[in-house]
């Protein structure tokens, strides 16, 4: 279990039991401490207010679209829970289907356009779920682009061609040398403004901030991935390339069939770390009014006034994402043996 088993005297069973209990006590202790500390400042925990930000029942009112008279109300839908309301006016007819108990009018009533006939309800994902989904989407896109960019930059970095190599070095150093937040601003407020202005002048639609955010994240991740890829390739013994080439394989074939598969397994752990960072860094995209998980949480906090619960939930949601990612990579690692 431990890294250096056998170097020291074997530990007794009691040793493990004792320190396991210490660990669990420590964990419970800190949670209790937090709880009582919040009690002290008279914070009122209202966990029951949290679920609505995951899933809530939306009420949609149904309004008449024209002036007329309700000529019939017939049972409709499964199990007769719904009714179909038929409105006939000078301009024609319209029908509405809605739950029986929400119906406000009866047959023969006169309605004007915009009059409330009734309502129906349906379940909608809450703002936190939407934010989580957007974080997932942004991270996924940025990871895919980041891998492609990183792979090619990594290969360019070790190329003999000076233009490719220096290009890769310049890109990597530029990106690693400035804060991601500044890069996001640059992409959106500088590059984005220029591109969108040109698009507007040529009569095309605008590119949404989301794409500039994804681009900033992908290009940021690509630079780090490139270094990981380079180190991975260089960690494969040079005899492998020589053996492949001595059999007559081209550089590209040898890379693809011999070097990269071996490098892949070694770069998985650092790559996982990089992508976990990316998921967390996507929280910065809130500054572009992209309502990802963090921005969504901030909005929920200002409307619910329950900051403690929401920020804890927010952190847990990130943890779920990053933990899943890390499990997935470990699975890949086992499979790639």
């Amino acid at each position: 279990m431990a890294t250096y088993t056998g170097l020291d005297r074997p530990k007794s069973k009691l040793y493990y039991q004792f320190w396991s209990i210490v660990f669990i006590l420590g964990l419970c202790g800190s949670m209790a401490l937090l709880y009582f500390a919040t009690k002290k400042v008279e914070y009122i925990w209202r966990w029951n207010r949290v679920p609505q930000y995951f899933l809530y029942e939306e009420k949609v009112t149904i309004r008449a679209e024209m002036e007329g008279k309700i000529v019939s109300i017939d049972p409709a839908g499964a199990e007769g829970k719904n009714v179909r309301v038929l409105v006939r006016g000078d301009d024609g007819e319209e029908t509405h289907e809605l739950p029986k108990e929400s119906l406000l009018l009866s047959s023969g009533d006169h309605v004007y356009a915009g009059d409330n006939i009734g309502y129906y309800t349906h379940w909608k994902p809450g703002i936190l779920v939407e934010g989580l989904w957007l974080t997932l989407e942004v991270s996924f896109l940025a990871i895919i682009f980041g891998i492609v960019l990183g792979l090619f930059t990594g290969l360019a970095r070790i190329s003999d061609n000076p233009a490719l190599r220096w290009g890769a070095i310049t890109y990597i150093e530029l990106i690693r040398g400035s804060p991601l937040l500044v890069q996001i601003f640059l992409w959106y407020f500088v590059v984005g403004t220029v591109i969108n202005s040109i698009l507007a002048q040529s009569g095309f639609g605008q590119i949404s901030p989301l794409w500039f955010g994804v681009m900033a994240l992908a290009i940021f991740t690509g630079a780090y991935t490139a270094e990981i890829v380079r180190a991975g390739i260089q960690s494969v013994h040079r005899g492998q390339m020589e053996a492949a080439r001595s059999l007559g394989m081209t550089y590209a074939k040898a890379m693809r069939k011999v070097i990269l598969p071996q490098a892949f397994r070694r770069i998985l752990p650092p790559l996982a770390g990089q992508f976990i960072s990316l998921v967390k860094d996507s929280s910065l995209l809130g500054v572009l009014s992209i309502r990802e998980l963090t921005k969504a949480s901030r909005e929920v906090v200002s409307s619910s006034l329950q900051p403690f619960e929401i920020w804890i939930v927010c952190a847990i949601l990130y943890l779920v994402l990053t933990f899943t990612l890390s499990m997935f990579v470990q699975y890949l690692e086992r499979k790639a043996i």
Partner: protein
Amino acid sequence: MQTPPIIDVQSIDKFFYTPERLQALNRVSCSVAPGEVVVIIGPSGSGKSTFLRCLNRLEYADSGHIIIDGVDILDPKCDINAIRAEVGMVFQSFNLFPHKTVLDNLTMAQMTVRGRSKQEAEAKGMALLEKVGIAEKFAVKPDQLSGGQQQRVAIARSLAMDPKIMLFDEPTSALDPEMVGEVLDVMKNLAREGMTMVVVTHEMGFAREVADRVLFMDKGEILEQGAPEHFFTAPTHERTKEFLGQIL
């Protein structure tokens, strides 16, 4: 008139800049007839590996000409991958592909370079594994084999390309003593079948038994060459005597 040589090396130089200039090969010339077995011996650092690696352009000689089967491989326009497919190389450290099974090690280049079908490549691969005596291990990964077995797989991998020439760079130097024999046996068989071979080795028994010619290299030059019986009984050069005295 003899048959034209299959390897014709004309006065090649090779420098390394590490960063100080080091001449690894100094005006080396040598030609090898088809079917000939040439053994290269010499002290460590004398340029044996460098010479061998120049023959399939793993090192690019700085000047001179290297004609392999009628093609000058130092000509930038030559198709080096086509030449390399004809020139097998066996390394001291085996260099098997660890992520592939033994059989896949043998089929990969057959399919990607020779364009053979999977069945064809596997049939050829199995036949060669049979020949080097480890057919039963076709499905395992190389790291589960002993050094001697790995080296035999490496030889089979090169042979799968149907090469005209085989280069061996100290193929038994990384092996435990009890495994040297099994690899040398495979090489002896190959020599008997008429393969053109250039072998860098310290196995003097092998040189005596199999070599048609022995080259002695020192400080980047071929100092002396001749038939093994002449070479081991009556070396002319002082350095050769000294070297043979040390290792025999």
